[in-house]
């Protein structure tokens, strides 16, 4: 029989308590009424926020594919960044004033965790640092009252799978070592081909049937909680539906690595809509004891990053 105080609540388990994939284009924030799909995405952010809060996170870890870095990975560490943001493409949709609550202490722990796994990383804490549109949109819609402190990490333009997986593992190290309950928010589109001309938002659609079919296949996997299976498909997804702006489609590698590299999740697709031709989806993953078993994976597992091997990219 335990002699502990029966009124004392059991401390919640640390770890990655919830995961979210959200698009970073500004329409759901700035002009949800311009198209039915934008409104559904806006509403999906709200539904996702409710689920996220139900898992009682004490940290939002945001990985934004719209924040590129070159010197390793950068981590936002300004405790209260404040600015009026304007998107470089959709500037006519309006300005986005923001003030966020960043967990400066965890940002430094995260940098140390990346360093311990052989990665180059640094914190950035400068007034006026240009936080990317995707991070701004995600935090404004998912955490409008800053009730949960956040940390944002960049995406290195040259990093491929090994480096990205190790970044995800390092983030997991920091979450567990800090005893944190983290919700991981990955900002990025599925297919990323925009229409290259202006469109009526009411007529927005996925750029091509092929993009749409692949997006739906990804969402079928994620809806079943098959995150690692999706991550294993990343190279093929990149070949099939990604405009090659960076070396590879790496958001799923990061997401799976930080969430534990398995398929044991309850997946929920809150919405899937077009954003100027790209595939925008709001998807939630809650860890569970069951789910789809691990498949026979093709990709190697990597624990430590051993640096740039001078492979041209």
């Amino acid at each position: 029989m335990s002699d502990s105080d029966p009124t004392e609540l059991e401390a919640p388990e640390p770890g990655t308590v919830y995961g979210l994939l959200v698009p970073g284009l500004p329409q759901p924030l700035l002009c949800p009424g311009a198209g039915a799909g934008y409104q559904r995405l806006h509403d999906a952010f709200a539904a996702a926020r409710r689920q996220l809060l139900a898992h009682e996170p004490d940290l939002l870890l945001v990985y934004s594919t719209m924040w590129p870095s070159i010197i390793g990975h950068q981590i936002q560490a300004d405790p209260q960044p404040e600015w009026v943001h304007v998107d470089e493409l959709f500037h006519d949709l309006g300005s986005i004033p923001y003030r966020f609550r960043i967990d400066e202490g965890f940002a430094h722990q995260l940098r140390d965790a990346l360093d311990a796994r052989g990665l180059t990383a640094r914190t950035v804490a400068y007034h006026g640092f240009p936080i990317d549109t995707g991070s701004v949109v995600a935090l404004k819609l998912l955490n409008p009252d800053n009730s949960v402190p956040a940390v944002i990490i960049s995406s290195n333009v040259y990093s491929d799978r090994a480096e990205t997986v190790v970044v995800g593992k390092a983030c997991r190290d920091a979450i567990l070592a800090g005893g944190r309950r983290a919700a991981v928010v990955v900002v990025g589109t599925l297919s990323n081909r925009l229409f290259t001309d202006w469109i009526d938002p009411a007529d927005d659609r996925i750029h091509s049937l092929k993009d749409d079919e692949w997006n739906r296949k990804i969402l079928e996997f994620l809806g079943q909680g098959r995150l690692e299976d999706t991550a294993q498909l990343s190279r093929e997804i990149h070949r099939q539906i990604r405009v090659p702006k960076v070396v590879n489609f790496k958001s799923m590698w990061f997401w799976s690595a930080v969430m534990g590299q398995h398929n044991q999740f309850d997946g929920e697709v809150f919405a899937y809509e077009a954003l100027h031709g790209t595939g925008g989806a709001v998807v939630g993953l809650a860890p569970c004891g069951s789910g789809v078993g691990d498949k026979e994976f093709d990709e190697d597992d990597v624990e430590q990053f051993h640096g740039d091997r001078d492979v041209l990219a």
Partner: protein
Amino acid sequence: MGQIVFGALAPHPPHLVYAANPPQNEPTAECGWETLRWGYERLADRLSTIEYDTIVVLSPHWQTYVGTHFLGVERFHSLSVDPIFPNLFRYRYDLTVDVPLAEQLCAAASEAGLVTKMMRNPDFRVDYGTIVSCHLTNPTWDKPIVSISSQRSAAFYSVEVMQEQMLALGRATARAIEASDRRVVLLASESLSHRHFVSEADIPEDMSREHITNHHQYLWDMKLIEMLRTGRTREVVDLMPEFTEQAVSESDSGALTWLISALSFPRYTAELYGYGTVIGTGNAVMGWVPREAR
């Protein structure tokens, strides 16, 4: 009748502003990248002999995937913090825009069949590529500018498609300037080879760490410079797809192709003011003075 009086390849590594310690930039340096900074000084000296009204710059760091955009607000003053090198570049800018010329350029590009847009949001933050190239070319900021975005068709389609669009934009630029009453300086704000190192020295201006990323890129840089110096600009455009891919070049922005087109494929010698590497990338500062402007 308006005229293009000077054109320049004017790369924008923020390191060059950092190392020059202008009062607008918060971080300070001991030294660094002198061969390029002195090259920019030679460019500025050359420009001091030429009368002009406006600088028009095409920057890879204003990336627009839908159309080509033009700054369309008369004045911008704010803080520019480099998203990649915030430790080096936190620059307070105060610049004026030649909005009438921007509108003429935008209209001409639209007439040429390109997708265009004027940028009218006063809260917009001017990209650091525009700021760095303009600062190094004209540190007094006593001339208005027009900034043109980089339409990323190289990523979306191919370098060939990008070049078709940039050649058209260059012709439209020349036509619009000719139809105006402006004497204009054009800046292609881009590096040549563009593979960076992914780590940085503790002292960023430690020049014992600075060199080209690899020999292959140096060879490409020298080949391009030699072709530009000897007036083989059509050949440069023909070679651009290979160069862009193999040297991971920032020419994917279209800036150099646009400049060559606007200058009507100059066959005269480009003046080379300086070449140097910045965190492994290859950068040349070069200028063209059109014959009719001499």
